[in-house]
């Protein structure tokens, strides 16, 4: 009995290990390709070279796309946090009867297929001549980022003891000061995680960007075109840089977010 249990434990561990390999394999494979000396896609690479990183850095269209994506993701983060955090206070604390419906509305952009949101906005943006404007893409991305902000911050806010605010109010503090000095500092792990997720979700987003960015491409759109047209290892170099960005950002969030990310994802 005891021994059989041990065997099943080991099998389970092996299975989980294989799944983790499956998950990480596609990320691992782009590293050697990005350092390849071959002129086209070849695996394993015949030799070592930095040429694809060089090509990325020397090509203004890649750099433009990168800068545009950073701008879009930054504005999206600011908007998603600036609008999403106050919204979360309302959704968590209000006792209005309609609050459940609005809660659903805020979560809806996750459930409604992105392609539907994309063509719906494509029609509106085309009429407003917003196609190709980077801030238009950022505003559209904000809609997709809001649910993440609401989920993460409301988890933090539910765990916060409101008595602390009443204590501060009893001591004569005004509400803006209370929120700013008492509540928000304690929500910092959720806030950091939410900001990070907003940034990455916008930085990686392709479907909305495909319809709304027009000729001024974001980085994912540029990568998509590259995959469709040529597939040279430049895209492997870009992929490595993106994986490293996500890795660093994840590391920073787990450092400053104190596990808010994982605890919320597993709630």
């Amino acid at each position: 009995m005891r021994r059989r249990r041990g065997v099943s434990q080991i099998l389970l561990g092996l299975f989980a290990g294989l799944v983790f390999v499956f998950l990480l394999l596609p990320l691992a494979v782009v590293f050697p390709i990005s350092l390849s000396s071959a002129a086209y896609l070849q695996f394993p690479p015949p030799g070592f070279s930095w040429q694809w990183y060089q090509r990325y850095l020397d090509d203004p269209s890649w750099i433009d796309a990168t800068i545009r994506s950073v701008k879009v993701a930054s504005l999206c983060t600011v908007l998603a946090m600036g609008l999403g955090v106050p919204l979360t206070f309302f959704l968590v604390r209000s006792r209005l009867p309609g609050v459940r419906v609005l809660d659903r509305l805020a979560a809806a952009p996750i459930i409604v297929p992105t392609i539907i949101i994309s063509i719906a906005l494509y029609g509106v943006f085309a009429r407003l001549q917003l196609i190709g404007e980077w801030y238009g893409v950022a505003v559209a991305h904000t809609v997709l980022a809001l649910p993440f902000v609401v989920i993460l911050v409301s988890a933090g806010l539910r765990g916060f003891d409101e008595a602390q605010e009443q204590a501060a109010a009893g001591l004569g503090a005004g509400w803006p000061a209370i929120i700013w000095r008492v509540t928000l500092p304690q929500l910092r792990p959720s806030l950091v995680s939410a900001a990070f997720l907003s940034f990455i979700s916008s930085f990686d987003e392709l479907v909305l960007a495909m319809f709304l960015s027009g000729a001024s491409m974001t980085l994912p759109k540029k990568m998509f075109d590259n995959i469709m047209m040529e597939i040279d290892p430049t895209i492997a170099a870009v992929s490595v840089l993106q994986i490293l960005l996500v890795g660093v950002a994840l590391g920073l969030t787990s450092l400053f977010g104190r596990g808010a990310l994982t605890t919320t994802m597993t709630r």
Partner: protein
Amino acid sequence: MSSPGDSRRTIARRRETALFLLAVPALLLLGIIFAWPVLRLLAMSVEDGTLANFEKATLDELYLYVLFDSVKIAAMVMAICLVVAYPVAFWLSRAGRWGVALGMFALLLPFWTSVLVRTYAWLVLLGRNGVVNRWLRDAGLIEAPLPLLHNTSGVLIGMVHVLLPYMVFPIYASLLRIDPDLSRAAEGLGAPAWRSFLRVTFPLSLPGVSAGCALVFVLSLGFFITPALLGGGRVIMVSMLIEQQVREFLDWPFAAALSTVLLVATLAIYALIGRITRGARHA
């Protein structure tokens, strides 16, 4: 004359007003940039005053086929994700600190890496002369390369890779919420481990299973990039059809009808899966 009850009510009302004002900017954004454009799009499908576009979307054999195919692929992705994710979630729920850290790393890093990066990597891995086929041939397991790309299996591999974490996290969460004393009690009373799992642990984890299945199904049904790149034109999902109608044929009313069908199917299945698993739990 204001009684204490009155002033408490005034404070409560003021509090509600303040809270609502906080929400106004976000609600405006959601209304203007999300709800209104989507509803306007859906309304386009009946702009000509008839249901002709819906007839075309649901009765024409070609479109019906794509619709069924999308549902079939979404169901397959959901089933594969469930079978793969459950043991992983179970292992995670019993793992030590380092095991959990490793698992979270392996789940979160791909989760937040661009879908494009991963799709590109699968193109490299799964092609005719790709890494996987080379390994299998070198190992003497196959003679001719396996067709892993530009077909349904390529799409399934790519989609499962993207959606697996959406299944693992809710199941893991529901497993963590189960009191470990319950299965210990079942085993203490003489139930074999498999039986205590089937009768105690698994039923209690069903809320997580339900949440994961609903999420994965709904997300796969609307998938666009992965099937477009890994399907090689041989796998057509509704989302690709919608894009084509807008981009190539400029047929907005028909695209709107297809969108409506996709949205209704999405919401219906989301509600249905929730109901089935809730029912199973009460049975």
